[in-house]
């Protein structure tokens, strides 16, 4: 335990270097901005920023990318509360009560409880990350290829079956991602596959390109085709952000409960923050002493219905870093792209990360504490500034997103071929959106697919071709059994009328 604190202190020494503080700040500002803006999410932003990994040192770049990831979880609440159009799907629950409060002139306290709740949940989340990550990494040192392969299968199935309206369409997206992941050099034998003699395909299809195509181009085309052109209506006025004594009393327990719900859900591959925010909202509704305040009862908006889900959302973001850093398993599209960022530096997130890149990891974790503090300052006193971002008209907003997206893609390897490919993938993205195929499984499939093939073939090499290895070893077998159980989760959820949408 003392050892952990020493490592963390060492991490702080890295994190407070001026350059790293600057990267954290840039990440937090960008993250908040994209959280506020509709149509652009953390997965896309992190993907577009990946070219910086070519130039910036690993700790600076990763600190910034994590700041974006983290900041987006803060910014999402502003749009939900002021406009009733959630910037991220994980803030849908916040919109329910938050926007009702804003309509009754209480936008300020709603924003305050969201920001403070995010800070508390984020800080507790990072604290739990500090405590648990080394333990999980130690445990995972026992994992061999068989364990990793079965864990990846579990991640595939949860990401694609839990989200979206239909398991078939979730798995369809996964199959597309796996297929894309096959293009390029076979990781074990070095044989080119599915390149169709196009030289650009030998290195494989860059996931940045797929992410930007699906998220930016797909979103823009979908929006222009099917969404109304008019601005989404009135914006609620900002009021004083001071919370009353009663507001505090009602927010505190909701923050803590939200954290308790959000963190564990983040650390299992359940695909984003929808389930925990939903659960937190329904918990607060059940436990509230003021059920009449909830919007569904025609009330003026219940503050605990904002406090809980927002806390859950941020604790979830911290929780997701546990499997990401210790196992190399992404639990959402953003996490999958973060893994890609590590890989650009030839660093493989996983149990060995804490040993081989100790200073980097601990610097990253320490920067999350600092980032949370920065985000509290950015989001509470400066909330009015962010609200002004919402006045950017839609044509210029989407045109700007497309310009940045194309730069990100073109900047990777200066190939106009990639821009055409990005457009084609964008058109596929429109079809997927229209027919409600979730997008995240594509990204997770294409990043995790080649990794899992490697583990599979290594595991079978060790067992000399014996497939039962995945069931003979207790840990691998546990993951396989869990995989089968997870298949039933969406059925149960749907029976109870819960429909989850995904986070982009």
């Amino acid at each position, binding site marked *: 335990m003392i050892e952990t604190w020493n490592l963390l202190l060492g991490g702080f020494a890295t994190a407070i270097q001026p350059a790293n503080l600057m990267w954290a700040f840039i990440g937090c500002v960008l993250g908040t901005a994209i959280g506020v803006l509709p149509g652009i999410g953390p997965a896309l932003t992190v993907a577009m920023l990946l*070219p*910086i990994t*070519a*130039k*910036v040192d690993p700790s600076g770049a990763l600190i910034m990318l994590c700041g974006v990831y983290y900041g987006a979880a803060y910014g999402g609440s502003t749009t939900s509360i002021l406009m009733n159009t959630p910037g991220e799907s994980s803030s849908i629950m916040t919109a329910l009560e938050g926007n009702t409060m804003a309509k009754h002139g209480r936008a300020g306290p709603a924003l305050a409880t969201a920001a403070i709740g995010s800070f508390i949940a984020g800080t507790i989340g990072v604290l739990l990350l500090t405590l648990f990550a080394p333990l999980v990494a130690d445990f995972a040192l026992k994992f061999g290829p068989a364990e990793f392969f079965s864990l990846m299968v579990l991640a595939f199935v949860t990401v694609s079956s839990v989200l979206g*309206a*239909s398991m*078939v*369409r979730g*798995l*369809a997206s996964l*199959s*597309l991602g*796996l*297929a894309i992941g*096959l293009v390029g050099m076979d990781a074990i*034998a070095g*044989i080119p*596959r*599915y390149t169709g003699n196009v030289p650009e395909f030998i290195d494989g299809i860059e996931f940045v390109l797929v992410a930007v195509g699906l998220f930016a*181009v797909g979103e*823009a*085309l979908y*929006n*222009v*085709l*099917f969404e109304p*052109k008019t601005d989404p209506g009135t914006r609620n006025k900002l009021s004083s952000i001071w919370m009353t004594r009663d507001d505090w009393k009602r927010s505190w327990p909701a923050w803590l409960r939200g954290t308790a719900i959000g963190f564990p859900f983040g650390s299992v591959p359940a695909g984003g923050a929808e389930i925990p925010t939903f659960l937190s909202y329904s918990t607060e509704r059940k436990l509230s002493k003021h059920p009449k305040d909830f919007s569904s009862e025609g009330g003026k908006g219940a503050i605990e219905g904002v406090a809980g889900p927002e806390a859950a959302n941020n604790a979830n973001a911290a929780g997701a870093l546990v499997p990401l850093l210790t196992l190399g398993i992404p639990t959402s599209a953003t996490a999958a792209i973060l893994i890609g960022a590590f890989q650009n530096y030839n660093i493989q997130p996983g149990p060995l990360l804490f040993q081989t890149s100790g200073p980097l990891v601990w610097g990253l974790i320490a920067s999350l504490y600092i980032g949370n503090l920065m985000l509290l300052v950015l989001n509470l006193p400066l909330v009015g500034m962010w609200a002004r971002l919402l006045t950017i*008209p*839609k*044509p*210029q907003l*989407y*045109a*700007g997103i*497309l*310009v*940045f997206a*194309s*730069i990100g893609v*073109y*900047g990777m390897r*200066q190939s*106009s071929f990639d*821009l055409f490919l990005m*457009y084609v993938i964008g058109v596929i993205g429109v*079809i997927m959106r*229209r*027919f*409600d195929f979730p997008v995240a499984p594509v990204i997770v499939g294409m990043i995790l697919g080649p990794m899992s*093939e490697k583990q*599979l*073939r*290594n595991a*079978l*090499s060790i067992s*000399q*071709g014996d497939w039962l290895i995945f069931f003979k070893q207790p840990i691998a077998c546990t993951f396989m059994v869990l995989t089968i159980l997870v298949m039933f989760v969406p059925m149960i959820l*749907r029976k109870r009328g819960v*429909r989850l949408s995904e986070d982009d």
Partner: protein
Amino acid sequence: MLKHPVQLAIAIAFLALAAVFAIGASQLPSDGGYAGVGSSFVPWVVSAFLAIIGLLLAYQAVTTGFRSLDAGDAIGSADRRGALWVSAGILLMAALITRIGFVPGATILFVCAARGFGSVRPLRDIVIGAFISFPVFWLFTLVLDVNLPRLINDWL
């Protein structure tokens, strides 16, 4: 008469993709050494996976349509002109970027996309587009060392 032709087309696209991947897999070496599975094994699995998904989607499409889907086949209300403008912007930039340079290319994309989303002031959009592209160009070329194509004859 088919109620969901587009949905069936999507299912058929999955089946076609499965076929393409199966043909590709059949041309890969299957020698697997100790593991017993070689380069072609996972491609076969993915191909089979795609085929199963294609069949399931086809079944849903010809029966009641994709499950729990609100949109159905309604693509009639779409704003095709807007989408054409956005598409034209992206494709023009892709085609021209190496010839006219990064800043003009990005500006064309900006103007076309804004037009697609209903902006009626192209001159103002040109100014904003260039205003966004210039600093990004400098950031990428000077700070990040990414080579972006310069303006004609390298003036900038």
